[in-house]
């Protein structure tokens, strides 16, 4: 057995699907890991150590090398723009990034956009040739158009149910999102065998990848 692989795992929604995928790939993760409240969980069975992180912080841990690899949504990667290897599209936690608005809303002179993803939103509107005012929010983005804070929002859409319930419509889908396997630049070399083996195992069981 080589060195232990430190894996930054996103807590919450993506973790469950990632753990499922790992198990399907034949990587032993004991059941009690799933409900553990510990932040650093050694998994000697798999020669790994899980670092349970807030999803948006996963690329940061991996870039600085405190985690060798990590699992993170493409939405976070595009927003954070960290210098890491993006090795695999795991095809899990599928959803999309979209521009959303109230159906009848006429924007004011300056288009205002509320989002958790200011970099993504700015880049997208810039590519459309539009300069917009971006307001960064941290949750319940759907509120912004309802209460008049913004004309549009840019947010992740999974089923679209929340939008429907609040009378919002998806104007445009910006890109598809799935979870990705990322690696630190140094770990990718120093622990290449372990990382390549993991990639090979995962590739056999991953659901088909989407196009971004």
């Amino acid at each position, binding site marked *: 057995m080589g060195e232990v692989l430190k894996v930054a795992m996103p807590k919450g929604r993506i973790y469950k699907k990632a753990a499922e995928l790992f198990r399907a790939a034949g990587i032993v993760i004991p059941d009690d890991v799933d409900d553990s409240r510990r932040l650093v969980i050694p998994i000697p069975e798999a020669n790994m150590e899980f670092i349970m992180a807030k999803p948006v912080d996963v690329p940061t841990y991996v*870039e*600085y*090398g*405190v985690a060798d690899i990590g699992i993170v949504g493409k939405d976070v990667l595009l927003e954070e723009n960290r*210098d*890491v*290897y*993006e*090795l*695999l*599209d795991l095809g899990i936690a599928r959803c999309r990034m979209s521009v959303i608005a109230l159906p009848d809303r006429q924007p004011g002179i300056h288009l205002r956009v509320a989002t958790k993803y200011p970099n993504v939103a700015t880049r997208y509107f810039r590519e459309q040739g539009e300069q917009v005012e971006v307001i960064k929010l941290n949750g319940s983005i759907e509120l912004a158009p309802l209460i008049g804070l913004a004309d549009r929002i840019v947010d992740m859409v999974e089923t679209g149910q929340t939008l429907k319930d609040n009378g919002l419509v998806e104007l445009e889908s910006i890109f598809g999102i799935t979870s*990705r396997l990322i690696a*630190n*630049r*140094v*770990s990718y*070399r*120093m622990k*290449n065998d372990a990382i*390549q083996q993991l990639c090979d195992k995962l590739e056999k069981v991953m659901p088909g*990848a989407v*196009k*971004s």
Partner: protein
Amino acid sequence: MSKPQGFEKPVGVRDYLPRATRRLRRIERSVLDCMARWGYDPIKTPTMEYYDTVGLASSTPDRKLYKLLNNRGQTLVLRSEMTAPIARVASSLLREESLPLRLSYHANVFRAIEEEAGREAEFFQTGVELVGDRSPEADAEVIALAIASLQAAGVKTFKFAMGHVGFLNGLFDEALPNRTEDQQALKERLLRRDYVGFREKAESLGLGSEQQQELEGLLRLRGGVEICSQAAGLSSHELALESLDHLRKVWEALSDYGVSQHVLIDLTMIGDFSYYTGMVFEGYAAELGFPVCSGGRYDNLLKQFGRDVPSTGFALKTTRILDGVDDPEGEEERPVLIVYESNRRAEALAEAARIRDGGGAAVTRLAESGNGEDVSESGRYSRVVSFVEANTPAK
């Protein structure tokens, strides 16, 4: 922005306190000594250069250059790396020197917008340039020297990865003739280390399944010298094959240097392709999350300064090594404290001179009345010698 407080300095720059400075100097000295033993002469260039010459020629993106105006309205840059300044010197002041030139440096360099911890705005690099030799021997020499330099700096566990820009240029040119934009898009994805994006792009190009598989197979081309022959099966493009042959020769030379076990061939390694023209490499230390060394061949740079000669070299990221590597030599020897009364000053200063001449360090101090004996100040000095009253000096 609020006015800075007295203790603050600009984001991204650092103070080096005595302990860190001693370590930095030790690394600098042992690495430059190592380079000198390979026949590389040290050189210093100015901190400021013209934007229109060194600034534009440098591999640093424009937005990362510190720019300033001088009193004539000319745009200057704080040097962002040492390769472009050395190319300027090699093409001007050293123009008459016979080739090859072997030059080494240790210098602080500057980058704008690097504002997070570990991304300094000012940091140290130690490196070499080998000017005027396009052979695989020269490339192998700089890699072998990079390995020796890392070892001299105290890095124990490390690995190097090496690739070749020419191979990728040839491979992509063959797969996508006259489709420069698509070639560029593939290269950009490799440069960003976005393998997922690379596969997606390769699939979207409308290539035959065989060609597409060849492109995607590139992502698995990592390993020893056998990779060169495997890769030769992917392409019959002349440039690609020449490049693989070059890499194989570099590897063979490294093997004769006795260091090829530290080196991995990775044909997806691309470096900045507007700058590097041939072999490129990076060095990694187990203790550090970021590469500690990068280098390669840049045969077009000196031409921009009017001397068309090939060149290859590398830079160690000395600041990162300082941050992440244990001090190989441990504590520096502490000075001797010499305490004296005024009537015995000559004796005391003579003793201090004797210690200093012998290569030791001595601090002298006039004893204050009443506490002449009480100067142990444990930790700061290795021992205390006193010339007080009738005491013979304690050795």
